[in-house]
């Protein structure tokens, strides 16, 4: 097997006395679609923050493309090719959509970015000159994704981009993500909704109360007793 693109080893993250992640390890191969699921508060976003560099873990290491990035600030990780969306959209509010994409284009991308094409691909073309304040929820989610992609990343971490969307909108989002994956981008999909993840992912990791409780093919995850307990709260 080739070396994984991203490798997280024994990550532990505390907030004061509260342990949000306990000894979490996972790996993603280049080009893979990995889903991470878990109930609310399981530590999924905390994991995203530790990978993207906004949070520093108390223990454990993160490797990307063969290098140890544990000590790198977030902007260096973005430049290496890790892009993430925020669960609650965090657009640059004073900037138009086009200007929003210009930030990662100018600061993170190592290859030229066609911001217009990206916006068009996500169905935001007509809004390229609009301010984020005028967008709907799904449009804001798409902007999050478009901005992540404008960095020309190797790995995209999508933190609950589907939450609150209708069935049709989820399908639309999945189509976009699958097309991206086809073009060679590795995707780590963080989701609370099981259905979408199961359909999208080649492999699924389950977090519960900050611990990894399962890691395997979607079908095996669905049959897993411990996962069922975590989700049904039995």
């Amino acid at each position: 097997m080739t070396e994984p693109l991203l490798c997280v080893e024994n990550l532990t993250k505390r907030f004061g006395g509260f342990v949000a992640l306990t000894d979490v390890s996972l790996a993603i191969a280049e080009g893979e679609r990995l889903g991470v699921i878990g109930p609310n508060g399981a530590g999924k976003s905390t994991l995203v923050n530790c990978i993207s560099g906004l949070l520093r873990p108390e223990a454990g290491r993160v490797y990307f493309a063969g290098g140890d990035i544990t000590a790198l600030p977030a902007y260096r990780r973005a430049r290496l090719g890790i892009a993430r969306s925020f669960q609650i959209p965090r657009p640059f509010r004073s900037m138009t959509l086009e200007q929003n994409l210009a930030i990662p284009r100018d600061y993170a991308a190592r290859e030229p970015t066609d911001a217009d094409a990206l916006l068009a691909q996500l169905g935001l073309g007509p809004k390229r000159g609009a301010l984020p304040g005028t967008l709907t929820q799904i449009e804001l989610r798409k902007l999050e994704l478009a901005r992540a992609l404008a960095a020309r990343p190797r790995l995209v971490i999508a933190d609950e981009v589907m939450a609150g969307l209708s069935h049709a909108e989820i399908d639309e989002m999945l189509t976009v993500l699958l097309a991206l994956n086809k073009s060679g981008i590795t995707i780590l999909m963080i989701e609370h909704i099981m259905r979408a993840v199961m359909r999208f992912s080649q492999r699924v990791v389950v977090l519960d109360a900050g611990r990894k409780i399962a890691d395997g093919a979607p079908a095996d995850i669905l049959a897993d007793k411990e996962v069922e307990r975590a989700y049904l709260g039995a």
Partner: protein
Amino acid sequence: MAAGYAATRYVANDYYFYAAYIVLQYVVIATAWNILGGYAGYVNFGSAGFYAVGAYTAAILYQLFRPPLVAMIVGGGIAAGIIGLAAGYLTLRVKGVYFAIATLALAVVLETIVNNWDYVGGTRGIYVLHPHQVAGFANYARLLFFAMLVLAVASVVLARSIERSRLGRGLAAIRDDEQAAESAGVPTLRLKLFAATLSGALMGLAGAPFPYYVSHLEPGSAFSLAIAVNAIAMPMIGGATSWVGPVIGAVLLGGAQQIATVTISSILNLLIVGLLLIGFVIFAPEGIVGLIRRLWR
């Protein structure tokens, strides 16, 4: 600038140059404040501290070498820039209100140091007398006016070019959402340090000619509340997201204050500025520039 120089030859009344000097000084200060406060969103309450570092550095250089005015200005800018960098390094890791408090504390610390430093006269102050003659100018007040005009034009041009550059867009991203900016590849700490250094340096430049302007430099006037308040109020009232705002704010408020000081006390003056600032923050947070843009649409 040519018109400014021509004015120094043909306008008779010296009072105008004294008044214009102060207005131009506020153009520099407001523009400087805005590079960190308006572009990057970090509110500096300690502008008077940086201004005073410029003024006192110039005074120290005067004591030591009697250098030409240009050297005093450059020295004041460098010293205040270094303080800006150091203060930024210590405080810019903390967001928002902590940074604001830290800048306030910095000004207090600097003032305390000056108050207790005999070499620069302590609380009594120090005489810094400008040369009697200068080539090309009828008197020194006019030279000082012209020097401040050059500084004002230079800082506005600089701010405008930053605003339109990649750097300016990076600062705007920091202002909008620092973590999102960092995640998009913006080296937020480095950009903030740059903005703090430049902002401090420009304030120092604005303060450096001040000893000659007043002849007797004392902590009370160098660390004045008026500078700290105006540095914030002028860009906020003018409009903090573009280079035009601080200029409009400085000219309107600075001009009005120059006219008003003849009739009302400086404390009342500041009270009015404070109330105006509160009004703008509540009713027109984008300042006069924002109001004009809204009417335009």
